[in-house]
C-alpha cells in the first residue's frame, strides 16, 4: 500500500462530535496529538489509538485513526496485544490519571517493565473527570471532593514510579503549550520502546485548584536548566519528585533498552496477522506423544 505524498491536519478532522467541556485542557492535547502525527507523516490508518474510559479516553474519537476504546484502566494490555500481532501499527495509548495510575496501576508498572514500542499519553487533570470530580492518585494532598470530604490522601508521583520501573522514555508536557507538547509526543512516538508522556491537563469543571494559571506559574522546561541530562537516572528521579512552586516539563528521562517485541522475536518481522496458518504443521508434534 503506497502512502500518500503528504499528510496534513485535514487528514485528522474529527470523526465524531466532541463532548468535552468548553475550555478543557483536553483540547490542547488533541491539537498537539494531531500536530505530532502530521509532523511524523503518519497516515491515519497507520495509527492505532487504544484508550480506556474517561474524558481523556475519548480523544481517539475526536481525531481520525484506528481506535480501540476499551475498558477503564485497561488500555495498555489491549495495546500490547494489538502491537504484538501487528508491529506495523504505531500504537498510542490515551489515558487519564485515574485510568493509568488508579484502575490501571498494575498494568502501568508492568508495561513499563516490559518496554513494548508503545506511546502512552496520560492526561493528568488530578481528578476523575467523567465521574464528576473525585480524587485521583495524583490529586494534591488535602484537596476535598464529595467522595473525599476529609481531603485527598494520595500523593503518588507517577513519574518517579516510572523512573523506578526503568521506563525507557519519560516526559511531561502541559496542555497550555500544545506546540511544545507536540514535539514531546513526536519524540515519544519515535522512541523505540515504551514512552510515557504525562500531560498536565486543567479540568475546568472539577479542578478549581490546578488551573491553567496555576500550572502556568509553575511549569519550566527542563532542557533550559543548566546541567540537565535526560540520561541521568538520579537526576530524573529528582525531577520526577519535583512538585510545588516549580514543576518540570520536557524529557525527564530517556534510555535505550531491549524492547518487548525484540524479546518476543517479532521486531522487524512482517506483522504476524498477515501470516496464513497451516494446521498440518501440527503433525510434527505428534511424535512427542507416541
Amino acid at each position, binding site marked *: 500500500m503506497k502512502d500518500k505524498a503528504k499528510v496534513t491536519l485535514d487528514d485528522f478532522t474529527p470523526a465524531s462530535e466532541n463532548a468535552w467541556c468548553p475550555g478543557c485542557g483536553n483540547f490542547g492535547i488533541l491539537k498537539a496529538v494531531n500536530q505530532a502525527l502530521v509532523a511524523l507523516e503518519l497516515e491515519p490508518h497507520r495509527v492505532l489509538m487504544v484508550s480506556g474510559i474517561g474524558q481523556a479516553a475519548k480523544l481517539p474519537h475526536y481525531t481520525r485513526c484506528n481506535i480501540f476504546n476499551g475498558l477503564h484502566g485497561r488500555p495498555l494490555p489491549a495495546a500490547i496485544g494489538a502491537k504484538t500481532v501487528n508491529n506495523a501499527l504505531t500504537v498510542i495509548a490515551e489515558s487519564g490519571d485515574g485510568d493509568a495510575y488508579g484502575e490501571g496501576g*498494575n498494568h502501568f508498572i508492568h508495561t513499563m517493565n516490559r518496554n513494548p514500542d508503545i506511546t502512552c499519553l496520560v492526561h493528568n487533570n488530578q481528578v476523575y473527570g467523567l465521574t464528576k470530580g473525585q480524587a485521583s492518585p495524583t490529586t494534591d494532598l488535602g484537596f476535598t471532593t464529595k467522595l473525599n470530604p476529609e481531603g485527598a490522601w494520595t500523593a503518588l508521583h507517577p513519574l518517579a514510579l516510572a523512573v523506578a520501573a526503568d521506563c525507557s522514555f519519560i516526559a511531561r508536557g502541559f496542555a497550555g503549550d500544545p506546540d511544545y507538547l507536540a514535539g514531546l509526543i513526536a519524540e515519544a512516538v519515535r522512541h523505540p520502546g515504551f514512552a510515557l508522556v504525562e500531560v498536565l491537563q486543567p479540568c475546568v469543571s472539577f479542578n478549581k485548584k490546578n488551573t491553567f494559571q496555576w500550572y502556568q506559574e509553575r511549569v519550566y522546561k527542563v532542557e533550559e536548566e543548566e546541567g540537565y541530562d535526560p540520561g541521568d537516572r538520579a537526576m530524573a528521579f529528582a525531577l520526577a519528585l519535583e512538585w510545588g512552586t516549580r514543576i518540570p516539563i520536557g524529557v525527564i528521562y530517556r534510555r535505550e533498552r531491549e524492547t518487548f517485541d525484540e524479546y518476543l522475536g517479532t521486531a522487524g518481522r512482517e506483522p504476524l496477522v498477515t501470516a496464513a496458518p497451516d494446521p*498440518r504443521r501440527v503433525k510434527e508434534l505428534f511424535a512427542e506423544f*507416541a
Partner: protein
Amino acid sequence: MAVDLNILIGGEAGQGVVSVGAVLGRAMVRGGYEVFADQDFESRIRGGHSFARVRVCDRPVDASRETADLVLALNAETVSLHLGEITPGGALIHSAGRNGAVSEGAPNRLDIPVHDIAIDAGGSPKMANTVATAAALGLLEYDFDILAGVLEHQYGRHGSAVVEANVKAARAGYDYARKHCPAGFKMRLKAGRPSGKLLLTGNEAVALGALAAGVGFVAGYPMTPSTPILEYLAGKGRDFSLPVIQAEDEIAAINMAVGAGYAGARAMTATSGGGFSLMTEGLALAGMTETPVVIVLGQRAGPATGLPTRTEQGELLYAIHAGHGEFPRAVLAPGNAQEGFRATVKAFNLAEKFQTPVIVATDHQMADSYYTVAPFDLEAVTLERGEWLCDQDADSQGADYKRYAFTDSGISPRALPGIHRALVSADSDEHSEAGHIIEDAATRRRMVEKRLRKQVGLAGEIAPPLSARVEGADYTLISWGSGNGPAMEASGMLTGRGHRINTLRFTELWPFPAERVRQELEKSGKSIVIESNATGQLARLIRAETGIQADIRVNRYDGRPLSAEYIVAQLEQEAGL
C-alpha cells in the same frame, strides 16, 4: 477375555507418581492398548499423598476405576490408604524401602528394595522409580523392549547415558519382579501390535487444537489446571511464531487477547475459575466490541481458591452468564482429549465467524488426565475466518468503513487495522455503525438487536448432545464434559444388571440446543442428570431451557472425579435402582 487392568501408583508429592503413570501408560499404548490415566494430588510440592491411576483396556476408555489390580506403593501411606482397593487376585508392589508399612491383607505382595536395585544396577537412587515401574511390568510379563523404548522417549533429552542407566535399572527391577512374583498373582498382559495411537492429556490436546487452529496470540496468568496449556504453547512459541505472554494478571491477559483479536489475530487465554472471575469484564468487552477471543476455563473445585488441584464442574452456569450485560457467546465442554482438540479448533472458528467470545470449559479431570487418541486428523481441520471486507473495499472505504454495519445476520465484515486503509473503530461504549460513542435510544436498540441476532446463527452451529438409545428404556443418563466417560460406563454396568438405559452426553452447551433435548427427553424413561457439582447446574439449565425437570440427580462434589462405580452406587442407594 476383555482386558481392564487398573494400576495405581501412590507416593508423596515430589516422588514422581505422575511420571511413573505416564511411562506405564505410554508402554501400554505402544503395546496396542487403550489407556486412561488420571491423577490425584494435593496442592503442595513435597510430601502429602498423591497417586496416579493407569487403566488399561482393549477398548476405548474415558473413565477411572475405583479398584486397583496392581498397587505400586512408593511410600508407606499408599499401602494403608489403598490396600482395601486391591481386587481379589491383584497384587501390592511395596517399594517403600526401609520405611516399612503394614501390608497384611494384600492378596499378593511383592517387597522390592528399589533403591538398592537401582544402585546395584549402576544407577542413582533417583532411578528407584524406574525400578518400581519396571517391576509392575515384570509382574505382568509385559514386553520389556517396549518399556526400554518409552524410557528412551522419556529421558532422551538428557542424553544416552541417562537413558542407558535407566534401562539397566529397569531391567534389574523387571527381572527381580519376575523372579519373586507372588504365586497367587496370575494376571498377565501381552503386548499386541502397536496401534499408532497417542497418549496425551486433555490440556495437551487443547494446546494442539489451538496450534492447529492457527492461534496467533496467547496471554495468560498461571492457574491450575490450565497452566500446562500456556506452558506447552510457550514451548512452541518460537517455532510457530506464536507470542505467548505471561501477563501481570488475568485482567491484563484477557485485555491483551482482546487487543490482539481486534488487530486480527486468533487470540486465546486459559485460566481457571478465579482467573475467569477477573476476566469477566474483559469477556463483556469482547462481547461489546465484537472481538473474537477464545477462553479456556479449566474448572476446579470452588468457590474462591477451593481445592486447587481437584476437580469440579461447578461453573457451567457461570460460564453461560459471566460478564455484565447481554451479548452472544458459545460455551463448549469437551469431555476428553479427542473432544478437547476438536472443541478448541471449533472455538476459534466460532469466535471469528460470530465475532464474539467463546469459552472452552474443561475441568481438572479432563485437563490433567491422559487419554489414548488416534493422531488428530489435520486434513479435517478447516479454518473458518468469518466475514471480512474484500481488499479493495478495505482500502477504498477509509474513514467511511462501518465496523458495526447493521446486517441481517448481525455479523459485520471485519477489516485489519493498519494493513488496509479502512479505519477500524471498536468501542466498549455503545456505538454507531462506524464505532463511535452514541447515546440515542434508537441506535442503542438496533445495536443490541444486531449483536443478539448472532446468537441465532451460533445456535445453529452447536452440536446437540450425543444420544445412545435403546428401545423402551427405563432411564436416560444425562451428563456433560468429563462426566460423559463415567456415565457411559455406568450405563454399561446398569445394563449388565438388567436395566434398559439411554445416554445423553453434552459436549457443547451454549447456545443450549433446547429443541433437540426436549425431543430426546420426551421419548425416554426417567432422566438422571450426572454432574460433578452440588447444585445440579445442567439439570437446572435443562429445566430453564426445556421446562423438563430431572427425575433423579447424581452429584459428586468432594473434589474427586466421577466414576461408574460412584454413579451406580449413588443410584442404588438414593434411587433404589
